[in-house]
């Protein structure tokens, strides 16, 4: 099996599973308990918090555990909006955010908030000057993702942070796809970020666990109320095994990050080069400023779900932004926002490389993909073999 869908989720590293197991077995105590058997859980939670803080260049007190990237995004967006309602009602974000940011924004619109979806360019990039121009007196939050999950585009986070900081607007970034690909330093270069979301299952940790970094002094409401966990900011008995696993996972994912990213990038680039030889295909997203493992192509005359399923039959796991695959009428909101016409977005294929991949995987995909594309084009009513390639 060739797994090229690391942006969807990753396998869990062996050491991570081993870190989790004791908390599924003997160390089952409730971290809130006072007696010894709860203490191991408590310690595991605090150790993980330190590991996350270290990996992000943050303080442990600024790390809050959640049930995943989606909850982190919801909390950051809605928690800030409600906490700062008296100061204003304007939020700036971009149309290529994950739904975990977009839908909370849509929800806030129904509650009287004003949201600007700042257009991005054909590569998905935000222009910091345009962002600055969009800031109003009543802007209470800017949310721009670190890197896009579909097309891999890396946003100019430092510049955006600077603009936000200069105008005193809190800045949230969804870094779910960034962890393990870039070094973050929230006390250093990333010091203008006020909130940052992450999710363990994107960096070889378990599903259903994530965190929100909240810089000290940030105004934000609790989102899940109840017990006194997480300094009363996020209630609920802790998913101790998940938290411990995430701690281990981030430690592993951020050790030697440059070398790791370089290795993935190399494989990715060879794959990209090979795929570009297929006629009538175009790369979506930025040619250079993209996640090291990300490739997103559109193959004209082909529908993406079919392509994905044929690849699956050949043992290759991939992803698509086609409307057919999602059961909705419109193809990927990200491809639409960067101006890819619907009929071409229909034929999109995302391949995301990671630790599960080897050079042999690249060879195999380069062998299989052109055949599958050919086969699907042969049955496409739109395709005329005489057409010329337009790269």
């Amino acid at each position: 099996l060739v797994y090229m869908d690391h942006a969807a989720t990753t396998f869990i590293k062996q050491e991570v599973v081993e870190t989790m197991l004791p908390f599924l077995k003997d160390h089952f105590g409730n971290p809130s308990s006072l007696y010894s058997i709860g203490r191991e859980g408590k310690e595991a939670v605090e150790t993980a918090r330190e590991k996350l803080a270290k990996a992000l260049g943050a303080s442990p007190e600024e790390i809050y555990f959640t049930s995943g990237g989606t909850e982190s995004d919801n909390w950051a967006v809605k928690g800030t909006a409600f906490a700062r309602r008296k100061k204003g009602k304007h939020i700036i974000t971009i149309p290529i955010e994950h739904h975990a940011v977009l839908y909370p924004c849509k929800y806030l619109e129904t509650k009287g908030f004003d949201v600007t979806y700042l257009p991005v360019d054909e590569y998905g990039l935000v222009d910091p000057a345009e962002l600055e121009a969009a800031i109003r007196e009543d802007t209470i939050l800017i949310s721009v993702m670190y890197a896009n999950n579909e097309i891999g585009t890396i946003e100019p986070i430092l510049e955006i942070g600077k603009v936000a900081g200069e105008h005193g607007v809190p800045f949230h970034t969804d870094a779910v796809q960034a962890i393990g690909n870039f070094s973050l330093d929230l006390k250093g270069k990333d010091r203008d970020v006020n909130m940052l979301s992450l999710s363990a299952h994107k960096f070889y940790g378990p599903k259903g666990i994530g965190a929100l970094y909240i810089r000290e002094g940030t105004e934000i409401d609790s989102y899940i109320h109840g017990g006194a966990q997480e300094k009363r900011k996020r209630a609920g008995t802790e998913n101790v095994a998940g938290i411990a696993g995430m701690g281990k996972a981030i430690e592993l994912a951020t050790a030697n990050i440059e070398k790791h990213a370089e290795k993935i990038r190399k494989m990715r680039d060879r794959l990209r080069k090979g795929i570009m030889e297929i006629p009538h295909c175009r790369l979506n997203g930025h040619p250079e400023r993209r996640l090291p493992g990300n490739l997103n192509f559109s193959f004209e005359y082909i529908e993406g779900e079919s392509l994905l399923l044929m690849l699956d039959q050949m043992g290759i796991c991939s992803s698509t932004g086609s409307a057919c695959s999602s059961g909705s009428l419109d193809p990927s909101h990200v491809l639409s926002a960067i101006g890819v016409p619907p009929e071409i977005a229909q034929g999109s294929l995302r391949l995301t490389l990671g630790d599960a991949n080897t050079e042999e995987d690249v060879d195999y995909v380069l062998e299989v993909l052109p055949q599958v594309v050919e086969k699907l084009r042969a049955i496409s009513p739109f395709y005329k073999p005489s057409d010329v390639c337009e790269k």
Partner: protein
Amino acid sequence: VYNKKVMDHFMNPRNVGEIENADGIGEAGNPHGDQMKIFLKIRDNRIEDVKFKTFGCAAAIASSSMATEMIKGKTLEEAWELTDEAVAEALEGLPPGKLECSVVSREATHRAINDYRKKQGLEPLEEKT
């Protein structure tokens, strides 16, 4: 997601291609931008040969393949009776939300038959919905 039968018709679609100088050609699409084109060779009121091309999901391709199998060799009257449900049933079921993907095969078939009728100077039949 899809059963074995659907996957078989998707991976090895029957009757793919075009017929030169076809007696009837029909085309149908849906709001996703999916499209099917069907070509009929008709002799003595019977569908002697049929070919198709489809742009769409696996359900659309498998339905096209199955629909062409079902009408091949049939009289035009018999072929007109093709329904979405019959195609889905012959495929042993389609996942929820994918039932409408078989609609294009039925529509394209009807349009091809009407195209043929027109060429013969006959009134087109009224398409069912």
